[in-house]
Each structure stands twice: as structure tokens, then as C-alpha cells.
């Protein structure tokens, strides 16, 4: 069974992985008819504040950090027209109105941490988005660093995105597609985030309710519980599983990961994002990643359907053969 699975999945997932990579560059051009392709906005290749669905930061890019740097003007990349952003929009109850479509900046998709070039796994040198520790490296325990290298060099088919799984946190927020924030009315008080990429979504109650899931329940994106601290949306995320990576470079965590996120609206077009990450099974100390989230300024922009798993013919074949009672060990090799 194991052998059969691997025979089947190796080719599939390599292809899926390639598709994901290709998509990350191609997707911004596939939009609704009332959302014409975004004009290039003079973005320097390493712009970290793309606002329009244009291809985002090169892996070398780095978010300006969550410490308040880089906010204030809501500009595009270098050369973008400097249109001053207005103040944070407000809902009738006074809370920040952060609804609309947004793009995460930063450059942590290939490697969330600072890294030298790793040609073997196709990751360029970059500073990542880790802001604490100051060296930009994830403070792995020695065994965990060894595992990260092994995973990235020998098990890239394990990358959870390549399987079309729900992304983990904070990887989901970094996804290289726009995402939509909704703040529906109602007594419960929710902030809902919907990504085009992998049709990920997060439903974040903000009424102060506690986590109620037992620690034995593990979810890809964990259990988010939010509250407002002034204008800052704080999200406490527990109950993640160990299946997701932070990036393509196999930076990983265990099912003990605990993430506290802070979404800080800086003006009407920019949100500062900071994730404090703790996982005593894997790291020697808590660490932080931070980047900016900028409003998608493309007129009429909408999320489209993102089918990742659908139409995967090798999946169909696998299921069909198994359901017909084929002995997995005797299935033909790809």
C-alpha cells in the first residue's frame, strides 16, 4: 500500500507542485471580465508593497517588518503614483472597517526565514520575513534543523500546498493571491477572510469566545479566535496539525504550534501583519514573522474559482484501481 501510494503520488505531486509554482506567476492575469488585467504599476522587481495583483515580490524581497515601518502612505512600489491613503475606515460601531481585497507583501513564500541560495531546491537567497530573532533565522532545535534540510531536499512532494490542502497559519496569509476580508453584521461578530488561492478561508469570531476544541483535534489552519485590542485585530490560533509548511523550503512546525497574529490597520490601504510563533517541540524560543498587507487597488477585482484538486486524473486512477480491488503492490509503475 505504501509503495503503491508513493508510486502513484510521486509523479502526481511533482506535477501538482509545478502547477502551483506556475500558478503563482500566472494567476494574477486570470481575472473576471470586469477586472481587466492589472496595469504594471512601475513596481520595481523587489517591491514589497504590490497593490494591484501584479506579480508580487521576488523571493529576495523582505517586508519592512511589523514595527510600524513602511506604513503611512499606502503607496505601490517604486514609481507608483504617490496617492496618499486616507485614514482607517470605520464601521458604525467604531471598529476598523478592513473589508475589501488585499495582497500580502513580504517575501517568505519560498523561504519564510533568511536563507542563502539553495539551488538544490530552487530557493534564492533572501531575507525572508522573520523579524525576531534579528538574524532572520527560525530558532530550530538541532534535530529540527536537520529535519528541515532533509524534508526540503528529499521530500518536496510532501509540501502540503502541492496536495491542495488547506494552508496553515501564517502561510495562508502570505499566499500569493489576493484575499477578501468581510465583516458581516451580527451579534457574534466575525471577521471572515477568503483567499482565491486554494479557496482557503478563515472564520474568526471576535466576540471573545474561548477555544473549545480539545487538544486532540488538529486542523490544517487551526482554530482561530479573535478579539480587538483597540484598532488591532488579534487572532489566537491553536489546534493546527503538523502537516503544513511555512514555505517551499520545508520550514515546518509540530502540532504544538501556537500562533498569535496581530492585524494592525495603518491607513485605509495598509494593514501591518505580525505572527508570533511558538512551538516548544521544534524551536528553542518563540519567533516572529511580519510583513505588510496592502489593499488590492485593481478596479472591479474579484476572487475567482481556484480548482486545485479537481480534475486530477491520477487521483481518479488511484481511486478507481483501489475501488476495483487492485493489489497496490502490483500496480504498474508510472
Amino acid at each position: 500500500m505504501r509503495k503503491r501510494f508513493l508510486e502513484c503520488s510521486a509523479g502526481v505531486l511533482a506535477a501538482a507542485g509545478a502547477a502551483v509554482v506556475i500558478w503563482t506567476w500566472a494567476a494574477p492575469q486570470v481575472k473576471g471580465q470586469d477586472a481587466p488585467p492589472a496595469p504594471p504599476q512601475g513596481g520595481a522587481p523587489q517591491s514589497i508593497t504590490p497593490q494591484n495583483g501584479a506579480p508580487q515580490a521576488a523571493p529576495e524581497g523582505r517586508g519592512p517588518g511589523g514595527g510600524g515601518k513602511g506604513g503611512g502612505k499606502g503607496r505601490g512600489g517604486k514609481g507608483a503614483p504617490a496617492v496618499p491613503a486616507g485614514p482607517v475606515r470605520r464601521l458604525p460601531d467604531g471598529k476598523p472597517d478592513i473589508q475589501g481585497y488585499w495582497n500580502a507583501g513580504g517575501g517568505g513564500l519560498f523561504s519564510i526565514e533568511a536563507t542563502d541560495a539553495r539551488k538544490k531546491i530552487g530557493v534564492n537567497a533572501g531575507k525572508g520575513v522573520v523579524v525576531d530573532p534579528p538574524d532572520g533565522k527560525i530558532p530550530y532545535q538541532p534535530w529540527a534543523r536537520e529535519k528541515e534540510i532533509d524534508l526540503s531536499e528529499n521530500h518536496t512532494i510532501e509540501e502540503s500546498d502541492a496536495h491542495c490542502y488547506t494552508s496553515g497559519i501564517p502561510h495562508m496569509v502570505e499566499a500569493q493571491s489576493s484575499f477578501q476580508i468581510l465583516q458581516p453584521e451580527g451579534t457574534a461578530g466575525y471577521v471572515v477572510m477568503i483567499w482565491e488561492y486554494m479557496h482557503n478561508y478563515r472564520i474568526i469570531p471576535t466576540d471573545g469566545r474561548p477555544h473549545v476544541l480539545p487538544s486532540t483535534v488538529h486542523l490544517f489552519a487551526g482554530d482561530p479566535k479573535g478579539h480587538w485590542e483597540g484598532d488591532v485585530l488579534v487572532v489566537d490560533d491553536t489546534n493546527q496539525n503538523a502537516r503544513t509548511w511555512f514555505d517551499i523550503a520545508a520550514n515546518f512546525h509540530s502540532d504544538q504550534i501556537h500562533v498569535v497574529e496581530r492585524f494592525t490597520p495603518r491607513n485605509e490601504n495598509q494593514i501591518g501583519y505580525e505572527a508570533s510563533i511558538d512551538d516548544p517541540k521544534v524551536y528553542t524560543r518563540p519567533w516572529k514573522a511580519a510583513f505588510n498587507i496592502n489593499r488590492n487597488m485593481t478596479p472591479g477585482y474579484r476572487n475567482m474559482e481556484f480548482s486545485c484538486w479537481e480534475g486530477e486524473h491520477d487521483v481518479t486512477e488511484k481511486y478507481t484501481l483501489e475501488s476495483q480491488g487492485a493489489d497496490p503492490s502490483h500496480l504498474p509503475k508510472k
Partner: protein
Amino acid sequence: MRAILSFWGAASFRGAASFYCAASFRGAALAVTLALPWALSAQTKSKTYEPSRLSDGKPDLNGIWNGPPVVNGDLQGAKVNGKRVIVDPANGKIPYLPATAAQVKKNFAERKQLDPVNHCFMPGVPRLMYMPDPFMIVQTPGFVGILSQFMHEVRNIPVDGSKHLENIDLWQGDSRGSWDGDTFVVDTTDFNDKTWFDAAGNYHSDELHVVERFTRSGPTTITYEAAISDPKTFSRDWKISLPLTLNTAKDAQILENECNYKMEGPTVTEGTRPDPHREAKN
């Protein structure tokens, strides 16, 4: 747990029973969202029900909802509260063209292999609304999202007078919402021909056009109707009607039904599957 299993088993009595039942074992978490809605189902349908309203005056559809999952097993045979789900035509039969009826039989015979949902593909419309998994309606003045627990599917429904896309086929189609008085109307076109209406092989072509109507009918109910048109597959238009039930449990939340993960099983990353790379080296 036993109650949950029988719930799922009943839900899939004719269709993908084995797959779904197996799937439900993994998700102890599902219990939180699946246990209560039907027990709490209110029988307070009334044409005169006055719904609570949002500040724009529209009825409040927000919340976690379940369709009756028995419908997912077999749309034609399903009854909810003693009533057929297919309300038009009156005989409760899907009016297939003679040329398409044979395909339904083939689909049914080979449903285990052919049902797209057995491959964890998007269920499409209207099937997503009566899958066993709950979904959340997120209602804002210009946009309504329907977020399903099944495979974290999302229906994006602009409510801004915009027109359908052209020359594109989508698994869930292209939906546009509008309000007809107190009824939320969703017009969906641009489907592909790869989804089914249920686990019994009832299907459609890429000419499918669905008009759904969501009407609050009680404190915990929505009357859901879908008018279905597809001249390549059916001899006439037909219509289904069924209740959606609000989950009123205090801590109800949408969790995850990561269907494809259940197909694939655990992995090297989690340390629960032997590492073939290391085996090879040794």
C-alpha cells in the same frame, strides 16, 4: 460518536456510503457542527415570518446552516418532512431527455468510481447546499460568501448588479446575487459538465443554469429553492425545494473536512509513515 455515525450513514444510504462513513471517522471534530442542527430543526414555517434584518433592511441570512443530507444520497427519492424534494414536475422525477437517461443509469451503476465527490472534487450547485457538511453564509451588502466545511469550498456571490462572466466553465459556476423583496436570489451559469446533483448519478451538461431562492421561513430555517434548466440534458425545467436549518449550538463553528487528505493518508512529514528516502539509503 455513534449518533454521528448513524447520521452520516443515513445521509448516504444510496450513494457514497462507504467513503463518507470512513471519512467521518477521522473528524471527531465534525461532531461539534453536525450533532445539533437537525435535533433543533424548528417546524415553524410560515409565509408571514418576519425575519430579523440587517442595517440595510435585508433579512439576516448569516449563520451556520445545514441542508438535509438525505438529499445528497438520491435527489429523486429524497423526502424531507414527508415531502418530495423535487417539487416540479409533480411526479418528482427529473425530466431527462431520452438520450441522456441512459447515462444516469451508467452513472448509478458506476457511482463509486464516477461520483466527483468521491474524488473530493467540488460538489457544484445546488449539491453543495445539501452535502452532509455544514456551511456558513456570510452576508454583506455587496457580497455574500457561502463557505462550506466540505473541502473548504467557497461560493463567491457578488450582489452588485454585475453580469456573468462569458466563455468560461467553472466547477461551481459563476454566481450573481440579487434581492427579490425578502428573498435572496442567486443566478448561476458558466458551469462545467463534471459535477453531479447527488450520489446517485443525476447529472447535467455545461448548459446548466440554476436560479436559487433563499427565503427566511422561521427563526432557524431558510426555504431553499433551486430552479434547474439544461436543455441539453432535460426535456423541461425542474425545481427542488428543501429547508436549510440554522445551527444554534452556542459554540458551533465550521471545522475542516479535508477530503483529499483522508484519501491520501498520513505522511512522512508527520512521522507517521516510514520515510522511503531513508529506507533507500539504508
